[in-house]
């Protein structure tokens, strides 16, 4: 893709939140206290927070106005109906089950669809999604195309499903042991990489012919739709909203974290097409989340999400959103920093294995790089490599092909000047990369270890 022309944010700033620079000595103390895990830093000790784009969005004045119109009735709140309308209009799922966030929807979906011993194929794992599948008794199988695992490949749709891999799995275990195929758009751990509409259609055709459902992880589907518009032949004249709807038509259901695309700080949903499944899901939502017309959300949160959905598909919004990510990515490429190519939708992923090639995988180069970046400049990033991948069933560390550090850009929060600071900070760490030391666990939780794990430096050079 050619460099983007200049774009401007399609909004102006209405409310600000102060941030604070720290000294190197402060940061050294803070990162030690956090066990070299950026998740465990206090946010007030962070200068620019690129840990995640999840729930960190700035809401619009329209969304805040919606917040004031929250109907907090326990049952039958009008905000529920507003959300139901927005989901039907833009995603096309007739049955809506609100949840407090995306993992609430994953929990319920896994429980209603999976029987122990089942197999779930998907275009690369995601941390919480796979854990819910495994807890329900299924085995996850990665059926993403090989290019996804190669950070240097510039395939335009690295999120695509490899139909041959999918077919091989279905033949091996039998279609009746495959309750659904999970299609994420975009694919977070591949680097925010999109799936092609034509690929989704082929997956849908393949699965429907065999009685297998397709479940869309719609978390960043709007960003995916923008890539389809920009890159897929014949799609340039379709609106992002129209493409989103076409994508959803390929799925029988979707789990959604509104904390990403939908520009809110909390909220998610499960969308379904089958009434009987929706009934089962409602029976569970009341146990885990809340009554089915609020799902563990305040009424105002549903209103903010309904408005956020409408804002998220506006062309100007999505162009500037991804434009900003690509601005940062291109500056890092210009500085010679190895990043995952092509640039993804919500984040720039640093190739930690390439940057810290002197560190063995068992010293967790991505974790070490994230810690080093914080020490350098107070920029907080997230490890997406072996620590996130966890251990396999035999207790061995999984070493995924990609050992990445994610610089995730919250929506509508930071300016171009903030991105310039991030570029300079990463470039500085890159210059000094041979000084960066590896890490080893001092505390390792059993599930989703990356959230709360603690580390110490190995081979400290005095």
């Amino acid at each position, binding site marked *: 893709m050619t460099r983007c022309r200049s774009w401007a944010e399609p909004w102006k700033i209405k*409310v600000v*939140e102060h941030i604070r620079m720290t000294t190197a000595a402060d940061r050294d103390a803070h990162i030690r206290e956090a066990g070299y895990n*950026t*998740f*465990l*830093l*206090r*946010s*007030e*000790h*962070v200068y620019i*927070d690129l*840990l*995640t784009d*999840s*729930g*960190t*969005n700035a809401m619009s004045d329209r969304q805040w106005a919606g*917040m*004031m119109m929250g*109907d*907090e*009735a*326990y*049952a*039958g709140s*009008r905000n529920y*109906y507003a959300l139901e309308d927005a989901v039907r209009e833009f995603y096309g799922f007739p049955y809506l089950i609100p949840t*407090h*966030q995306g*993992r*609430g929807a994953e*929990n319920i979906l896994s429980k209603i669809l999976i029987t122990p011993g089942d197999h779930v194929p998907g275009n690369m794992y995601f941390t*919480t999604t796979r*854990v*819910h599948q495994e*807890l329900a008794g299924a085995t996850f199988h990665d059926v993403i195309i090989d290019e996804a695992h190669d950070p240097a490949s510039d395939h335009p749709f690295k999120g695509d499903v490899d139909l041959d891999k999918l077919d091989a799995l279905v033949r091996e275990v039998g279609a009746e042991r495959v309750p659904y195929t999970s299609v994420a758009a975009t694919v977070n751990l591949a680097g925010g990489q999109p799936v092609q509409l034509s690929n989704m259609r082929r997956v849908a055709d393949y699965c429907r012919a065999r009685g297998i459902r397709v479940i869309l992880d719609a978390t960043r589907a709007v960003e995916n739709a923008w890539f389809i518009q920009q890159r897929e032949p014949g799609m340039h004249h379709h609106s992002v909203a129209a493409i989103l709807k076409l994508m959803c038509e390929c799925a029988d259901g979707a789990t959604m974290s509104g904390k990403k695309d939908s520009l809110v*700080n*909390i909220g998610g949903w499960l969308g379904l097409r089958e009434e009987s499944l929706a*009934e089962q899901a*409602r*029976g569970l939502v*009341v*146990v*885990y*989340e*809340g009554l*089915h017309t*609020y799902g*563990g*959300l*305040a*009424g*105002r*949160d549903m209103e903010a999400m309904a408005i956020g959905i409408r804002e998220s598909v506006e062309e100007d919004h999505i162009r500037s959103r991804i434009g900003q990510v690509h601005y940062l990515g291109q500056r890092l490429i210009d500085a010679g920093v190895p990043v995952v190519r092509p640039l993804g939708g919500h984040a720039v992923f640093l190739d930690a294995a390439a940057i810290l090639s002197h560190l063995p995988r068992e010293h967790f180069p991505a974790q070490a790089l994230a810690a080093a970046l914080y020490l350098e400049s107070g920029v907080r990033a997230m490890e997406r490599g072996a620590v996130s991948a966890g251990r396999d069933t035999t207790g061995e560390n999984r070493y995924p092909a990609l050992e990445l550090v994610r610089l995730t850009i919250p929506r509508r929060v930071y300016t171009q000047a903030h991105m310039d600071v991030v570029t300079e900070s990463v470039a500085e760490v890159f210059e000094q990369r041979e000084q960066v030391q590896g890490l080893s666990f001092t505390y390792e*939780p059993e*599930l*989703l270890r990356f*959230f*709360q794990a603690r580390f110490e430096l190995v081979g400290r050079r005095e």
Partner: protein
Amino acid sequence: MKFKTIIEPFRIKTVEPIRQTTYAQRIAAIRAAHYNVFQLNAEDVLIDLLTDSGTGAMSVYQWAGMMKGDESYAGGRSFHAFVKSVNDITSFRHVIPTHQGRAAEHIISRAMLKAGSIVPNNTHFDTTRANVEHCGAVALNLPIAEGHEPQTIHPFKGNMDVAALERVLRENVGNVPFVMITVTNNSEGGQPVSMENIRRTSELCRAHGVPLFIDACRFAENSWFIKTREPGYADKSPLEIAQEMFRLADGCTMSAKKDGMANIGGFLAMNDDALAATCRNSLILTEGFPTYGGLAGYDLEAIAVGLYEALDPDYLHYRIRSVEYLAEKMIAAGIPIVRPAGGHALYLDAKSWLSHIPPHQYPGWALSVALYVEGGIRASEIGSVMFGRQSDGSEQAADLELVRLAFPRRVYTQSHMDYVAEVLLHLRSVAKEIRGVRIVEQPATLRHFTSKFELLPN
């Protein structure tokens, strides 16, 4: 003080319009809702007394806190503000936010219970009971005998039957992972538990080495009852009383949608380090990272502020008095209610009021339907629909058939209450015409939320 009138200790900053409906519109709406008031559209309700959970009006300070919400995924300053408030009030070392109270119950149940475990409680609330039973454990209610007698006046009808608890602990050594005490006792009519009773429960639990958890949803209201009814507490502040109460326990579950004065949120707090680690790991799976627990940063701020507002003596005075005000009107009119009036709700005694409707025709449910049809008022049944179905699928009448008129915090005025009283007086004159109901369709758990009903012939 020289004047007797108790005013709301606030003025109104923002209003939300409510809508009058006609009798014909309400008939159509309740039919469409299959005679289940949970299924009504909120817009079709004039005065919504379904619950005091998450329906409160936040203060200007809470809204200011909302604007200060730190939405960082990890380590946000709103989380630290939240922990500071909870620590100050409860003194528990570990504070784990959850998206609401039932998630806290779910996590503690999953961490501590196994099939066949017994959990004694003065009275489990519906979600607590569902979470306990979901783990295959037995939810055992041990209220004092007076708790079952709507007309008996006792200052602390929510108390635990300590003698019964002692028997249970003695006869089930090793099989009671924790004891819970619910303040106030919601299912028994929002009745308070005395400090003396909590202390004796605590001593008993400690003697048996069993941790005590407080279901703290309405801890502030309970503190007010202790202050006004229990000897020796008149000069203590509600905050001091709450602090003393929590020090007697090893942990608590909390729905901040009640005495957290918030529209969403809850928490789990405890002293045990190993248990807290287990709970945090479980939290990440279903709720969120431990520094946000499935809440937005702005929610954590609103709770941090709200917990103190709930303990303000002027607020509590007004709050408890509002319920008493309606109760006095009912007593004067001879309408049977649970006495004394509870903290957050007035409970109509449907069993004695609608004695022509047998328990299997759900008199409480029938009354909740009539309240809506006649006056556009929404209230909830706490009786045989909520509690009647046993874990083996059989049906057993609940001890009490109540209809709860729950008061949202700081939402309705005295004239709204005067209207409610008028509707109830009208219902008294047509009580004999109220018809029982039958369940047409029901889900496996928590059936009151989604079951469909039909009216039975008179």
